[in-house]
């Protein structure tokens, strides 16, 4: 790998950038790998990187049906945080947040981790108590959290409507270490670093079948031919059900569309991430200047990567309800991504009944922040053939036993999660 440093930057600047090399190779597909990872999203690429770097498993291929980062890692609203209530989740997402905190140096790639804080607004005493329960759980687990009253919120985000709101703002739960990360760069940074450890990143290679014999995985069928592999991991986010079906697995997952929106670039307006749960709206400002915002799922099974007007309307109305000064800012683009929604809102990182086949999925709309930890845990689970403590609870079994991890308490109705 060509290291990025002040020196290389200076040299290339002066010689017209003729010396920059490829960030990752375009290797020829080999007939056999120790590990094949299906899905070149954030998770798949991170898993490949940690497999090679931590576990020394370097004969790895990441197979991506399109271009790496073209899935949800490249279309999400970039929020990272570890403000979860259930201990299993708090621990896992805090591990992710710690990895984010050192990621630039680790990858030698600026993924622009920006710990500008994440603020969740509350509008009633009951909501405050529910947030406090979560914040206190975080603090007990050693994670930062603050409970702000209305004045505290006003200081942080002066443009919020404190005068005329239908649901007056009483305060907010704030995690200062939360923030945003430059989403595409995460895919590219992991790809480049994994590639440097010898991982083959194969684009435009869709997996069409998973070969299993005698209860053990043998390899995969792809649009570029069959590949043998000792171990295969599924890490395809919104397409988890489709790919798992190739191995005969049915999951407690539905695929749903989540939309995202970006405005034209403007000078700095909002310095933190604000979420307005009562109005299905959350917003941050990208370094480029666009307000990036989103809301709830469109609310029906879909693989369409685009949304419809009802949710769009809800989101904008929610935005106007708390930030009435954004009325004249203009929407530049909106798009959708396909979410792998589990029935309790928490993920699955586990072995499967097929030996050598691993599953990472069910990330719902929250898997971007998980990326480093999901990759890290998946790599561990593959390399050791058993889960790490951090992901031991993220199994499919919990839906039978009832040991659910339902942060929101809405039950098995993904469309209203």
């Amino acid at each position, binding site marked *: 790998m060509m290291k990025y440093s002040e020196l290389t930057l200076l040299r290339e600047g002066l010689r017209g950038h003729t010396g920059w090399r490829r960030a990752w190779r375009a290797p020829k597909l080999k007939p056999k790998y120790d590990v094949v990872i299906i899905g070149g999203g954030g998770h798949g690429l991170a898993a490949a990187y940690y497999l090679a770097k931590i576990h020394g498993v370097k004969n790895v291929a990441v197979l991506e049906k399109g271009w790496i980062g073209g899935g949800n890692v490249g279309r999400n609203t970039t929020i990272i945080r570890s403000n979860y209530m259930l201990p299993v989740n708090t621990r896992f997402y805090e591990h992710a947040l710690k990895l984010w905190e050192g990621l630039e140096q680790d990858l030698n790639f600026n993924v622009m981790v920006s710990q500008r804080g994440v603020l969740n607004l509350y509008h009633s005493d*009951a909501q405050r108590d529910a947030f406090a329960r979560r914040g206190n759980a975080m603090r007990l687990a050693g994670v930062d959290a603050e409970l702000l009253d209305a004045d505290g919120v006003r200081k942080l985000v002066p443009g919020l409507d404190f005068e005329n709101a239908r649901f007056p703002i009483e305060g907010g739960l704030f995690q200062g270490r939360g923030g945003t990360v430059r989403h*595409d760069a995460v895919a590219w940074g992991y790809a480049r670093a994994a590639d440097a450890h010898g991982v083959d990143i194969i684009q435009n290679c869709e997996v069409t079948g998973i070969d299993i014999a005698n209860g053990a995985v043998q390899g995969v069928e792809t649009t570029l031919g069959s590949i043998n592999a000792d171990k295969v991991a599924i890490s395809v986010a919104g397409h988890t059900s489709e790919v798992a079906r190739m191995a005969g697995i049915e999951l407690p997952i539905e695929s749903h569309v989540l939309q995202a929106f970006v405005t034209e670039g403007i000078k700095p307006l909002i310095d933190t991430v604000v979420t307005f749960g009562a109005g299905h709206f959350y917003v941050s400002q990208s370094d480029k200047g666009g307000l990036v915002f989103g809301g709830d799922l469109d609310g029906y099974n879909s693989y369409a990567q685009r949304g419809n007007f009802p949710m769009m309307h809800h989101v904008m109305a929610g935005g106007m309800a708390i930030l009435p000064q954004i009325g004249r800012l203009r*929407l530049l683009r909106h798009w959708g991504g396909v979410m792998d929604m589990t029935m309790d809102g928490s993920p699955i990182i586990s072995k499967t009944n097929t030996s050598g086949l691993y599953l990472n999925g069910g990330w719902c709309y929250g898997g971007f922040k998980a990326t480093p930890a999901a990759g890290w845990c998946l790599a561990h689970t593959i390399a050791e053939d058993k889960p790490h403590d951090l992901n031991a609870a993220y199994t499919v079994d919990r839906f039978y036993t009832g040991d659910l991890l339902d942060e929101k308490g809405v039950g098995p109705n993904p469309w209203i999660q």
Partner: protein
Amino acid sequence: MAGSSFRLPSGGAIDRSSSLSFEFDGKSYRGFQGDTLASALMANGVRLFGRSFKYHRPRGIIALGSAEPNALVEMRGDARREPNIQATMVELYDGLVARSQNRFPSLRWDVMAVNQLASPFLQAGFYYKTFMWPASFWEPVYEKLIRRAAGLGRAAEAPDPDHYEHTHAHPDVLVIGAGATGLSAATKAAETGARVMVLDEHAALGGWLNHEDGEIDGAPYKAWLDRQVSTLETKENVEVLKRTSALGLYDDNMVLALERVSDHLPEPLAGCARQRLWIIRPQKIIVAAGAIERPLTFVNNDKPGVMLASAAQGLARCYGVAPGKRIIIATNNDGGHRTALTLQQAGIDVAAVADARETLSLCAEESQSAGIAVHTATMPQKALGGVEVSGVRLRGLTSEKTLDLDCDVIAMAGGLNPNIQLLSQGGKRPLWQEDIQAFTAEPSDDAISTVGACRGIYNLAACVEDGRLAGEAAARDLGLSSTAAPSVRIEPSAIDIAPVLEAPKPPGTRGKAFVDFQNDVTAGDIRLAVQEGYESVEHLKRYTTLGMATDQGKLANVNGLAVLADARNEALPDVGVTRFRPPYTPTSIGAFAGHHRGKTYQPIRRTAMHSAHEECGATFVEAGQWLRPRYYARPGEDMLTAIKREATAVRASLGVCDVSTLGKIDVFGPDAAEFLNRIYINNWLKLPVGKARYGVMLREDGHLFDDGTTSRLSDDHFFVTCTTANAGRVLAHMEHASQVLFPELDVVFCSATEQWCGVALAGPNSRAALSKLVDGADVSNDALPFMGVTETTIEGVPARLFRISFSGELAYEINVPWGAGNMLWRRIMEVGAEFDITPYGTEALSVLRIEKGHIAGSEIDGRTTAADAGLGRMMAKKAFIGKAMANRPGLTAASRPALVGVKPISTHDRLRGGAHFVAAPKAREQESLGWVSSTADSPAMKGWIGLGFLKGGTARIGERLFATYPLKDEMVEIEICSPIFVDPEGERVRG
């Protein structure tokens, strides 16, 4: 030149008799009605409109209309300040104020232009490679700098004062674009009687017709245009929407369009919206959105003075403005020559045409014979000049000879891109047409057709015919016309165009050739991205930001693909295209949000007694969409004092509380009891008529869903109540049960929530008060015992009395028809006067129920089970929804936190909801044993009490633990107790 007039002596659709004054960057100018801000400034010799995003390079206009990437200005001021508005889309009005943006201190002297000096180091993707040292510098230093430098305009600092609205429309035929093609389609469809809607972005309809002279059906363009428009506008079955942009094509062919109702005015007229979002569901869509000209890629092609040929032509023809004094046209097709001739006819000096094609076309010969020098096989190598263009260096494509010419405008004619943005939003790949060197898009659906220039048909007569056929076909499909379908469809004919968009850059040439003007993406950036492996078109876009600016690549995308194809050594169509997304043009958030904001963001539900509460001095609180009295403060009282007084009064004498918001459902039928038996965990078959029972429902997954009391009014009539928060969900759940799960049951039901309003009359004196209230009914303990129900009248109004109690006191719920609510409240206050009756709100209600250990929303948080909440014993043997799943080990584990009461050891200590139970008094790294769900400052218990869920549950009654609230650094020593603090034996409610 600045200051001198570029207004042509004649021409343009402007009203020269109405002169308007306006301001740009603090300086006053004059223009005419019919001008845009751009044309008026150009007429005044202003060419510098803005600074680019990254390098802060000076920029002028390039395109006219919504494709303009450069001339973005800040409009209006204060709360109406609008950033990034295309000067080319702003209609001039008297008193208009605009400013340039992204510059300091002024547009001409922008210090940030030093970025250009650093530009060798600001190549595409430089962010990802740098700012990493030292690690701690990214957020506090680098990111702040980057954020400040980024972004273009500034948002308003106060709430938007204007009003927005939506309107739904259902035309038979929607025509998008009112150029020659669209108008012809609309006219034809309208003739058949179809309901037609035709919309166009501009105030003036006609599209390209306004740019040229010619004849259609023997009439001059202008006459033809006026006739079409006036016919359409007078037809009752036609709606013509000007200033209206189609934004997106959504599922089931819904189209969103934005009408700029008032943006051409200083302020919206009274009662009128600033903008209106049209939500259109047409049967048929005809896309006649025309085509957009392409720029050419050469060094310094971003200097003010370099513009599209169509823009130069539009300035002259639509606004009577000379784009400059001396013009050189660079073209790869006949379009440039047509512009040359049109401009020359308008009296503008066209010095030369550089034509990339090797041979002279007929059109090029016309230029020549008009005295314009034509250089074949020639492209501009570089624009010359300082801030603005002062000349061009032409270079032969084969001869490599260069020629410097003076000029102040370089007009680029790179061929046309059919305007396929709307059509490809659905994700369908555009198709490359070799014949016209451009992409077209096939509609995804029979209900949509694309016509005219939008389909690559550039011959005007053919466009008009194409539109006509489409209008007729739409009517035919709708059954409104019986004409036969034509046997052949008009197809685009090949055009004479040189397949080059980028001028060769001889080795050693310095300077930047721009592809995406606004985002400062150069041809060099694209090649660098490919070199680094970001060669997929989507990677290229994200790495360089090509096509990500406010114009979404309307000008940049195809030119970018040409460079990409060259760098990858592939054919242009083989490198793929990025995905178009809505909206077609940037659209205000206010317009999408629509009317409902501020207090009307969501409807407010008022109970029947709302006015009475107002008179009693209630402070209201949102309960979902309802407003409920939270407390009734007396003068000088704060909230906590009022709550305590109210709660005390209930326990001491008498209180009244509006409980109208509870969900109420009338359930009828021989199988009503069986139905309830299946949806509640407890038994209903044997409930006698005239009795109420507390019921609990589970979700199918075994968790607590809702609770409430349900009464049997007759054998086959039950009256279900559920919580305010869940009223809608419970009804839906019951509809699922009856329509989907148990259709065999003979049961019907409907909501009665707003048929009946209700109050709780609670306190030891409630019976005495009630007996005075009712028209003579016997309400003694014998006649109406605990959980008894009876029907009577109050002042002649039918009333239902329920002897139920949430507060734990002797209490009644009284229901009367909604319209009698105020009467009921007034009567209760009258009969209660002797008992010092106290209205109480939701806060006191909550105190009372916590004292009594009744669960509510905070305890039913979607994760708790009936057993967790101490209701496990209610689960009957019979089958009911949720039973099987409630028996899973995870839901029955003994270690699950279960409901307990909790009180501080020291009566001075306060308990807070959301605190956690821990074993030891340290703030961190402690296992949470459970949490406090609800708390109250209890007058009855003389201190704080709470309900919570604790591992081990009631088995731990008597234990001392800690309630910790690290968010406030609080640690309170507590004792676990029974959740029922007041009257555990239930004597009061039965008394």
